[in-house]
């Protein structure tokens, strides 16, 4: 995909927006199943927000509730008010919620022409966006034969067409090759860096670690974490200590307020820094052989946070 950047010659180019998506007490039930339950969070401008959760956690339902596509409880404010109260909703939020969000018999260009009508965008903007996502050569072809990756690009083109203040993308990296994923990552980071809010749901945790600055994690429709990736990961990181007298050091660390897990030939310590542990060991006459911070990965953090929150979970692998 070409390495073009967002922005450009559209009607909103150069304007500064302070946009935050504010989600308050969203709720939705399907029969007896509570899909989304009292969910509140914010999507700040200027950063990419990752929206994480196991399968069936309620991510897609939440996005549809935010946009008013599904009826439920709570409210979502875009730039201070519900989407329906904005004069030009397509300039407020661009969405890409389905993998193939177009009619197979309508050309890619005509699909975008249709979306351009609400914001009265010129034809030149359609050409610009098609070139940006690398679909200029197939602009006048019907997308029924598009690969999943091409379909995702067309969906992204539709989302950014009106240069909206916010983007909401549901699994946009599905079907993309590594080069396209890298392009998407850079594109979204640049888009957010221009002062816009970007909410991206994904189950690709390693990709999300590279793409997102802020994450919202849900499980069974409930919020389980909301913060920067560093905050979440550091909360679940610990310090590994290998020493000559683990039992004595463990007692010293516990008396100093640390939580200690005794492992094979080592201790895992939460609540104390490496400096504090070093001083305690020295004062207690314990020789430290190894002292290191063990940083949790986003995947480990995610697994700890969501726990048994996956619906329709696999059985044990034999």
């Amino acid at each position, binding site marked *: 995909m070409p390495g073009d950047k967002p922005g450009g010659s559209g009607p909103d180019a150069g304007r500064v927006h302070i946009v935050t998506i504010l989600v308050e007490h969203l709720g939705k039930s399907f029969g007896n199943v509570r899909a989304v339950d009292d969910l509140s969070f914010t999507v700040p401008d200027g950063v990419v927000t990752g929206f994480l959760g196991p399968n069936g956690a309620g991510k897609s339902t939440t996005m549809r509730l935010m946009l008013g596509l599904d*009826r439920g409880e709570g409210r979502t404010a875009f730039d201070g008010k519900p989407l329906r109260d904005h004069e030009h909703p397509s300039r407020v939020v661009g969405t890409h919620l*389905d993998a193939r969000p177009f009619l197979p018999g309508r050309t890619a260009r005509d699909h975008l022409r249709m979306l351009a009508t609400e914001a009265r965008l010129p034809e030149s903007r359609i050409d610009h966006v098609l070139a940006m996502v690398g679909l200029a050569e197939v602009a006048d072809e019907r997308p029924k034969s598009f690969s999943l990756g091409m379909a995702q690009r067309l969906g992204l083109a539709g989302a950014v067409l009106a240069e909206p203040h916010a983007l909401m993308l549901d699994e946009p990296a599905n079907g993309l090759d590594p080069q396209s994923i890298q392009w998407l990552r850079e594109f979204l980071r640049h888009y957010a860096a221009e002062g816009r809010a970007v909410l991206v749901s994904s189950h690709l945790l390693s990709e999300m670690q590279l793409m997102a600055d802020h994450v919202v994690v849900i499980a069974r429709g409930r919020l389980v974490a909301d913060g920067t990736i560093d905050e979440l990961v550091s909360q679940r990181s610990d310090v590994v200590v290998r020493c000559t007298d683990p039992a004595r050091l463990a007692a010293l660390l516990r008396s100093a307020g640390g939580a200690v897990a005794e492992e094979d030939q080592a201790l895992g310590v939460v609540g104390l820094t490496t400096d504090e542990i070093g001083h305690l060991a020295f004062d207690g006459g314990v020789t430290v052989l190894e002292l290191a911070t063990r940083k949790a990965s986003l995947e480990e953090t995610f697994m700890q946070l969501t726990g048994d929150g996956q619906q329709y979970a696999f059985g044990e692998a034999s």
Partner: protein
Amino acid sequence: MTGALRYEWVRISTVRSTWALIGLAMLVPAGLALFVAWLVGSLGSEAGGPPDGEAGGLAGFLPLTAAVLCAIGAAAFGQEYRHGLIRITLATFPRRTPIFIAKVLMVAMVIVIAAILAITTIVLAQALGGVIAGTGAVWDETAWGASGVRAVLYIVLFVLIALAITALTRNQPVGIIAPIVLAVLVEPIVSAIAFVQGWTWIDWVLPFSGGAAAVSTDGAEAWGHLAIFGCWFLVIAIPAWVLFVRRDA
């Protein structure tokens, strides 16, 4: 509202099926009209002249025209639900009533033009059939004036009922098939039973029988039938609109 109308115009005009169906609606009934006019003209020549009104009737071809065009009405909602486009449409136009109205208005506008073209083609085909049969061109004068207006409105309402059924059921095939099955199968059976029972009023309240009567009768009675046909559209469209506004996309 103008944004929704522009959106609907691009939506309806950028799919080939719209133009293909309009072409079919012009060609198929016209072809049939040509054949009937030729056949009646030929038989009439042998009998010493064409029987009055037999070859020149427009009303008989209108249900076929409407049945072909009702796929355009059904597609207004059906295509969007089938391909998930409805979520893009409603994210672009979160106020749902204007987009519902825009769909109805834009389909009605396109069908008015398609109906005028189809009726003109039928009339020309009937005249040509008479010429080929050697009895000379027979012009159906009912195609002009109030009768012609009713013929166009009958086709428009037929298609809008297909649109409303699709909006109600979110199912495009049902939206296409239901009006045809009602018009061709269900209502004739109900009408026959009613005739046996002596319930003559029932033809006034059956939608498609009433619609057909609107183009095969004249004067106030014809307009009355058309008004009842229009009421049936509202009977289906109003709950469809309420559900469209309230339910999940």
